[in-house]
């Protein structure tokens, strides 16, 4: 299916990206090219194949990762806010929502 500029604009919106006109023009054909390339997977019959769980080994899948729900030391407010672009009174300040 051909990918048009308006499809690219819609995806950009979903991805929270504000692309400029130049980027829309360049990305369109590049993304369409990659999508065409990946469609070669349609040559394969996968009707009876289970999707991979994510490259995990049998040993990894058997590893029990649950732990007790106990309070442990954490960063704390001061350190957690230290890298924030606009911290205010122990919070992350953001522009207005509406």
């Amino acid at each position, binding site marked *: 299916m051909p990918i048009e500029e308006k499809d690219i604009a819609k995806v950009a919106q979903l991805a929270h990206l504000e692309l400029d006109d130049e980027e829309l023009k360049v990305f369109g054909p*590049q993304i369409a090219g990659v999508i065409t390339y990946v469609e070669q997977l349609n040559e394969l019959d*996968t009707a009876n194949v289970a999707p991979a769980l994510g490259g995990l*080994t049998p040993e990894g899948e058997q590893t029990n990762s649950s732990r007790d729900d106990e309070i442990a030391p954490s960063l704390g407010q001061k350190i957690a806010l230290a890298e924030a672009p606009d911290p205010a009174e122990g919070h992350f300040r953001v522009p207005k929502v509406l």
Partner: protein
Amino acid sequence: MSVKRVEQAIIAAEELNETLNAFLEIDRAGALQRAAAVEHSDGPLAGVPVAVKDNICVLGLQASCGSRILGNYHPPYNATVIERLTQAGAVVIGKTNCDEFAMGSSNENSAFGPVRNPWDTTRVPGGSSGGSAAAVAAGIVPVALGSDTGGSVRQPASLVGVVGLKPTYGRNSRYGLVAFASSLDQVGIFARKVEDVARVLGVIAGRDSRDATTADVPVPDYVASLPGDLKGARLGFPRALFGEGLDEAVGNAVKAVVDVYRELGAEIVDVDLPHAKYAIAVYYIIATAEASSNLARFDGVRYGFRAEDTPELRQMYRRTREQGFGAEVKRRIMLGTYVLSAGYYDAYYLKAQKVRTMIKNDFLSAFESCDAIITPTAPSTAFAIGEKVDDPLAMYLNDIYTVTANLAGVPGISVPCGLSTERLPIGFQLLGPYWSEPMLFKLAHAYAEARPFIERPPVFAPSV
């Protein structure tokens, strides 16, 4: 002893950085202090200077991930692999340049300029861990850490003539490694010697309660696995991968390696990975899908860069991401968002996960008849800076030999095997079953002993 060694590394890093652009931060004062503190340590890596890719968190140092959106970000904690390295006495001297968020095969996607290949500074060092690779190749540090999502340790290792390992998925903790594609990412190791890679893996490997994907598998003595003859070892040769798209000189060099293994007593068996040719397509669906999700966290709220003059929240998100991310990252976020979007999920993402199973099964059945598989690491030697930047698909094909290991979760190691007529390094890759790092080290070490790679690049640390 450690202070002197660390200082030499720092001097070399400072001196060569103008030429190579391998480091984004060199921590002279901090590193010397840490070196003094381990002066009398008897840890397995006491006083060893180490360079770390800038997407792995080191307390006190920056973690830009090669991106403007993180820029001057300083993480408030150490990655588990850094904690373990430091406990063993290693001294981090600085953070290395990389493709933005580890997305790239040439290092040209760094927001802070490309790294240059010490063998020819008009060429790329490979990517995405190009700075770590160049730092080791140029003799600045004996060991460096990188991350490997589709070949980002092995491919640059090949292009600069050093050893590079991607361990089995779950061997190392990813805690403190900035996530790109979580089901593929793994911290990897660069060194000039196989033995050094083995020693470092022994230190950083193992279960970590802070990364649920680390497996509860004992960590063997990797250095002890190095010696021994290869009688009885079976090396798989996937003939079909030595055809179209492979540079002839690289193909011939790797075939010569097969002959060396035969001389060393290994049995060469033909194997087939019939779905390997689909690996790039599968990879660029799964990796971009995971990236679009992982990179959603960069929104200008909690850390990093925020765009100015944005009176409304959603506009702030969009402008921050528009101004903060580079072109390749945006392209991949877009691709990932597209393949996951409503109506396309089954056609792309689910399909790719099914073919991933087929690739994994290819390996499982190949390893019934061999202990490891040999391939080239990259289809060519280092290419010129600028040569492939406008053609994303051509750039992606650099990873054709390496991505399969990430998709299947198996370990892979790249080992140098000589120079081309243009004096550019060529590497070969060994892939093994899950947890077979000892066998990979043994095979790699046997080759390196038989055909030592002793050449040095024109850009190399001054000898003291």
